[in-house]
């Protein structure tokens, strides 16, 4: 990758250690992805906020980095481990809370926009089409490219962090060429958001950087988010287009059999001890919709709903938050299902969810069994 003279100086440490670290990261990424140069970005979204995922090494790294580093562009951040309003209900130890607070402070010191959300695209207006951004949270990167028509690679926690500090990203991969190399034909009838989650997980496994999907017309927000999140979990694909006439060279079918294979990989229980909704966090539209579905009904077991704080405040002023709470839901902000320290083997063996991404991490990181079903079935089975 060609660097300008000023960029070269930064890489050599002439402008301080934090810029040197950032340039070292982007140089490696540029080399790995055959970038020719760096391009300016207008928004960074970083992951690596939850102490449960980055641990002591991550916490110490950020504390050191934040001594000198400042974000150069608007930088939103992923969820952390808990909601401070309800943390005492979950029995987290003092060490966790202390370390999590240190991480939050480090990001604040560097100048974050305190979104603490994996769906920045539902909180903030998106810039105009083709704007370069740098999104690390995989569902947000895929959403930005596929639905927002922005340009980002499926960034890593460090590449987005480095881009936030430098204000640039390597010009490579999807920023340069986002034409799909594979087309997946959707053959499953009457799909719901879980079907699209299973499709996304399959697509992430078989597709390269960009994929076309045929046989699908319009997707509602819930299905779009489910597709983006599961695709980001299983592979390195960072974009999809709905296109019945793609000229992609490789064609693959997603039929009932393929769907069952993915389902059997992730679904390990017939029922759950607890219900979680959100991964990605729910937006206002989904909360409104859920409040209507739950009218006159109430959950028979604990149901945790994860949503951004800004959305929870809106939902509260519109009355939906109260309706959801009356139906037995607990609303949690600043955190999410994915890699949550709040749901552990100490309290439950299994979880019911409609999130493929949530299922993957519940299984692999939390060591829990998962009962997967679409929201409509969750409402009919788990409420009365």
């Amino acid at each position, binding site marked *: 990758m060609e660097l300008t003279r000023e960029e070269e100086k930064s890489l050599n440490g002439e402008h301080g250690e934090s810029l040197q670290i950032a340039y070292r990261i982007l140089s490696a990424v540029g080399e790995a992805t055959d970038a020719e140069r760096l391009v300016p970005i207008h928004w960074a979204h970083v992951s690596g906020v939850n102490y449960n*995922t980055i641990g002591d090494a991550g916490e110490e790294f950020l504390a050191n980095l934040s001594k000198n580093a400042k974000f150069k562009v608007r930088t939103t951040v992923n969820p952390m481990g808990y909601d401070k309003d309800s943390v005492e209900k979950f029995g987290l130890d003092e060490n966790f809370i202390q370390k999590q607070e240190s991480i939050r402070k480090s990001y604040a010191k560097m100048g974050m926009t305190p979104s603490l959300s994996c769906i920045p695209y539902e909180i903030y207006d998106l810039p105009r089409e083709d704007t370069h951004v740098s999104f690390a*949270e995989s569902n947000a990167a895929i959403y930005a490219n596929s639905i927002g028509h922005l340009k980002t690679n499926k960034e*890593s926690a460090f590449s987005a962090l480095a881009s936030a500090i430098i204000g640039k990203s390597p010009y490579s991969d999807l920023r340069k060429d986002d034409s799909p190399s594979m087309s997946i034909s959707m053959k499953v009838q009457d799909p719901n958001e879980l079907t699209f989650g299973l499709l996304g997980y399959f697509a992430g496994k078989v597709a390269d950087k960009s994929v076309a999907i045929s046989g699908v017309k319009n997707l509602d927000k819930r299905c779009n988010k489910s597709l983006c999140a599961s695709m980001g979990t299983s592979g390195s694909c960072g974009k999809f287009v709905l296109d019945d006439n793609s000229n992609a060279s490789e064609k693959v079918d997603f039929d009932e059999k393929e769907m069952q294979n993915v389902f059997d990989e992730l679904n390990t229980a017939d029922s759950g001890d607890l219900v979680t909704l959100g991964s990605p966090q729910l937006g206002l539209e989904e909360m409104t919709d859920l409040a209507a579905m739950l009218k006159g009904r109430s959950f028979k077991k604990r149901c945790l709903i994860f949503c951004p704080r800004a959305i929870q405040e809106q939902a509260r002023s519109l009355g939906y938050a109260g309706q959801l709470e009356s139906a037995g839901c607990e609303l949690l902000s600043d955190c999410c299902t994915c890699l949550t320290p709040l749901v552990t083997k100490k309290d439950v063996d299994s979880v019911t969810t409609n999130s493929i991404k949530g299922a993957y991490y519940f299984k692999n990181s939390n060591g829990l069994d998962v009962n997967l079903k679409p929201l409509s079935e969750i409402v009919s089975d788990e409420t009365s």
Partner: protein
Amino acid sequence: MTQKIIVQGKVTGKVLKSNQPINFLGTIDKKTGEIIDKKHDLYGKTIKDSILIFPNGIGSSVGAYTIYSIKSNNVSPLAMACQKVDLTVASGCALANIPLFILEPDEYDKIKDGDEISLG
């Protein structure tokens, strides 16, 4: 045998080779360096002090922190080598200073699990 050096370094060691991509978050225990995903072909093995060879990284962007953590916890491989290097592995190894290589396709195929090799 290397097509490209992403993070510089010279190493000699024993190959730990996987045929499956790795999602560092959720597949590797960052404290012990052990592969904890039961569905992974390296399940139960440790990556510590190996030359870890795998097709490519996948999944979570936070996997970069896992790579940084295994280095800080002294359980990291001596080096990594891949067919394709994704952003998570590149940036994680860059920050952690773990040598990282892209191998020539036929070299990649030739190297077997347990081989003693030198890279860099």
